[in-house]
């Protein structure tokens, strides 16, 4: 496909790899923020082609992984109600709640539908006027405009049977949390290209400055990722800490202004509890009060949720780059994609799922 195949070109990949090998002189720990990048790195064997000086650790950019257990349990409770159709991205269905997942709700008679786009959820609501249709609106900045358009459309169509369960999180506060931790190992960031397609990258300038850390906006194809790594390593070796863009065909510094306007119109900042990590102040968005009628948390009474997380799962440390999946005692034994203890083993963006799928086990 045009604009994908060219960025998978093996000859150009070799050129950039050679340049990285030639540039690196010291050991460096880099974090790719986005789980989509983690999977691309594993799938293409990029981690195994890099010089041994470069260690990649995997970031928290997996929306279904960081959606709080309380919200997952709320979704399960709402989906179990009679007359409700719960709609969701497919990734969310096997995410473990305190004692079950959306698949098991469906197996016991609940109506749970997978949608490709939030706008498809609006169509489900139009087609089922006698049902309450709820969309589980998880996501980072990338997904915010699509999630918001479902609310805008439902409002314009006068739909009274559509609501969203919002779990929106944002990247910059998570970067602050990672860099501010005494256990932090990250020395350079590959910023998530599609988050920046929406938001631009001016938000990262104060982070690079404060923590003296290079941040390079990076895409998802092998050449994009290698270019991001090369630019980060060049900065590290030169003692620089700037924000650079290795994904110019998709990302501009200011981002997509109409998309940002949509976000400001419908969402406001809020604190968010990140699964496995904890509360990060002002790290997400919720619906503004003007859109309260579309808020599933207000429409359905689901209070008194008592959450219970797995005792063994180390997903939180994996999501912050402190541990690698094979360091978990349950990895590949008690915890597999079929029977996950944590969301990082389920999602197509989860680091544990990537290690399991591409058989990466730490060398002794």
């Amino acid at each position, binding site marked *: *496909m*045009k*604009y*994908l195949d*060219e*960025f998978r070109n093996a*000859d*150009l990949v070799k*050129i*950039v790899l*050679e*340049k990285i090998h*030639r540039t690196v002189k010291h050991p460096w720990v880099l974090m790719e923020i*986005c*789980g*989509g990048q983690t999977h691309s790195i594993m799938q293409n064997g990029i981690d195994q082609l890099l010089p041994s000086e470069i260690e990649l650790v995997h970031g928290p*950019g*997996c*929306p*279904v992984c960081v959606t709080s257990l309380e919200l997952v349990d709320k979704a399960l409770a709402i989906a179990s109600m009679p007359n409700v159709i719960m709609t969701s*991205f497919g*990734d969310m269905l096997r995410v473990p709640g305190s004692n079950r997942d959306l698949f098991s709700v469906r197996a016991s008679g609940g109506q749970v539908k997978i949608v*490709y*786009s*939030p*706008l*498809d959820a609006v169509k489900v609501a139009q087609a089922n006027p006698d049902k309450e249709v709820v969309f589980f609106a*998880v*996501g*980072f900045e*990338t*997904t915010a*405009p*699509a*999630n918001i*358009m479902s609310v*805008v*459309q439902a409002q*314009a*169509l006068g739909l009274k049977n559509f609501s969203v369960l919002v779990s929106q999180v944002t990247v910059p506060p998570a970067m602050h949390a990672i860099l501010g931790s005494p256990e932090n190992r990250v020395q350079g960031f590959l910023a*998530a290209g*599609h*988050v920046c*397609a*929406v938001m631009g990258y001016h938000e990262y300038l104060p982070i690079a400055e404060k923590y003296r850390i290079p941040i390079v906006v990076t895409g*998802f194809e092998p*050449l994009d990722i290698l*270019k991001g790594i090369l630019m980060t390593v060049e900065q590290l070796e030169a003692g620089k800490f700037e924000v650079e863009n290795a994904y*110019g*065909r*998709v*990302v*501009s510094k200011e981002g*997509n202004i*109409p*998309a940002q306007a*949509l976000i400001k119109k419908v969402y406001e900042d809020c604190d968010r509890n990140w699964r496995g990590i904890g509360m990060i102040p002002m790290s997400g968005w919720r619906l503004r009060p003007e859109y309260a009628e579309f808020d599933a948390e207000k429409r359905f009474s689901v209070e008194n949720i008592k959450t219970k997380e797995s005792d063994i799962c180390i997903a939180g440390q994996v999501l912050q780059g402190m541990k690698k999946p094979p360091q978990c005692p349950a990895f590949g034994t008690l915890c597999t994609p079929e029977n996950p203890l944590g969301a990082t083993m389920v*999602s*197509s*963006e989860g680091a544990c799922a990537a290690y399991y799928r591409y058989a990466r086990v730490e060398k002794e």
Partner: protein
Amino acid sequence: MCLAVPGKITEITQTPIAKMGKVDFGGVTREVCLEAVPEAEIGSYVIVHAGFALNTLSEREAEETLEALRELGEIEGELLMDESSQG
């Protein structure tokens, strides 16, 4: 989930609610919301996530990136030649 795929716009419809359109992804066509890419026209490439176009793709930037990498290849090749002639 933040994966987004480039595709070519084949149809644009201005509905009362939003700018919508059809986008061709190498043979598969899907309905896409084009509300955030007012500049996009039929034939433009957009990068699409969850049925929503995040941005128009800059074809000029894409070509420049590839060209810069090819040039890097030439420079790296010369460096390798120098090393082998010295070694």
